[in-house]
């Protein structure tokens, strides 16, 4: 799933390791989410949203929104 995680992390000057520690997941998990190789579960998506103090939809791009834009 497309997302703004890398950008939000870069704005705070956090490494993937830093973000992983804050979310209590591995660095490779952060990398997989950032690159869109892995879609986080709803609880993890909420943790990410709460960490950045943003609604989920401002971090993750809804696949249905993407396809409707494409149309």
């Amino acid at each position, binding site marked *: 799933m497309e997302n703004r995680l890398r950008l939000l992390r870069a704005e705070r000057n956090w490494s993937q390791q830093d973000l992983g520690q804050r979310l*209590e*997941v*591995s*660095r*490779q*998990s952060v*990398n*997989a*989410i950032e*690159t869109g*190789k*892995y879609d*986080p*579960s709803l609880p*993890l998506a909420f943790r990410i949203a709460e960490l950045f103090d943003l609604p989920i939809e401002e971090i993750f791009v809804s696949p249905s929104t993407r396809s409707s834009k494409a149309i």
Partner: protein
Amino acid sequence: MPRSPAWARYNWRVVGLSALYATFLIAAVYGFKHQLVPPALKYPVAILPALPIIGIFGAMGRYLVEEQDEYVRMLMVRQILWASAFTLSIATVWGFLDNFGLVGHADGYWIVILWFFGLGLGAIYNKLTLGAAGC
């Protein structure tokens, strides 16, 4: 990357069970070879080395329950699916070849060896498709 506490516990369990397996196997082989096993205990002693292996399957299940990192957990689940599909496919093909008299009988424990090999194949598949091998 530092591994999770669940991973460390899993590793210790596997190391302990592997040591137990080696001990039981040596004891059972020695017992049968020197005819030290009474007839009433032959089945339990023969099964003894299998128990730690079953324990390793249990340890893997326990790890999946205890691992808090959902992505890492998913990597291991994919490995297990790969291992199971690989082993069941080989067992099915071998079964038919055996049925038609084209190959000899294989010892049942080969299933376990193939399954653990399949875990390695799953790790390679994870690495190629996701960039991370898993366990």
